[in-house]
């Protein structure tokens, strides 16, 4: 499914949707950025509560389809702007990462 379809299906807040047609082919959850770079695959939806600027670089370099912030994690407008210039799809939810994994599972399994 596309990121746009996933955002609609899971009722995710859209912070930046530069590439709504990107295909979500899997998922990965984690906050340690190097760990994510070692394990996330291109096309994954990445679930995290980390919101610093390096998240955008990691999302871009790993080629994940989208980054989904859990627990309504606060993120600076400047970082959302960077996501937009780097072509990173950035979404958010009030749900915890655990609850998001559960909700996401049927769409990517």
């Amino acid at each position, binding site marked *: 499914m596309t990121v746009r379809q996933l955002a609609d299906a899971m009722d995710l807040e859209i912070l930046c949707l530069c590439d709504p047609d990107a295909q979500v082919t899997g998922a990965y959850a984690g*906050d*340690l*950025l*190097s*760990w994510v*770079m*070692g394990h996330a695959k*291109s096309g994954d939806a990445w679930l995290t509560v*980390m919101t*610093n*600027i*390096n*998240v955008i*670089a*990691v999302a*871009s*370099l*790993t*080629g994940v389809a989208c980054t989904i912030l859990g627990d309504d994690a606060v993120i600076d407008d400047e970082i959302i702007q960077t996501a937009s210039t*780097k072509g990173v799809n950035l979404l958010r939810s009030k749900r915890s990462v655990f609850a998001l994994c559960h909700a996401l599972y049927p769409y990517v399994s």
Partner: protein
Amino acid sequence: MNEVLQFHYDVDGEDFTSAGEASVQIKKNLRQLGFPPDTIRRVSIAMYEGEINMVIHAGGGEADVLVHEDYIEMILTDHGPGIENVNLAMQEGYSTAPDTIRTLGFGAGMGLPNMKRYSDSLHIDTAKGQGCKITMKVFV
């Protein structure tokens, strides 16, 4: 493409937030040159880990990327404290990064292991107090 293309980047050791500029730029350049997405992904992640390491441990450094027809070579040079025990540093989970770095999501002890994971060859030339020169190759 017979001629070797060379890119040079200075990695600013003061600015943790701009770490990754070189990796993002090389990703863009390789994409323009038409390299396969998986090759670009491996190069840019390996390079990013190298950049982050230079910022965390060495106060910055330099990155040179040589684009050959069938492989990409990355040479990362710094004048930091060097790596005392390379075998230990190569172990997943081993880190000497300070706690302040962990709050940024780094310092998991995955930097060098990821550089090895995503490159086809990794050579580390270092000694305590004498900086570090890392050469990585990714074959297309």
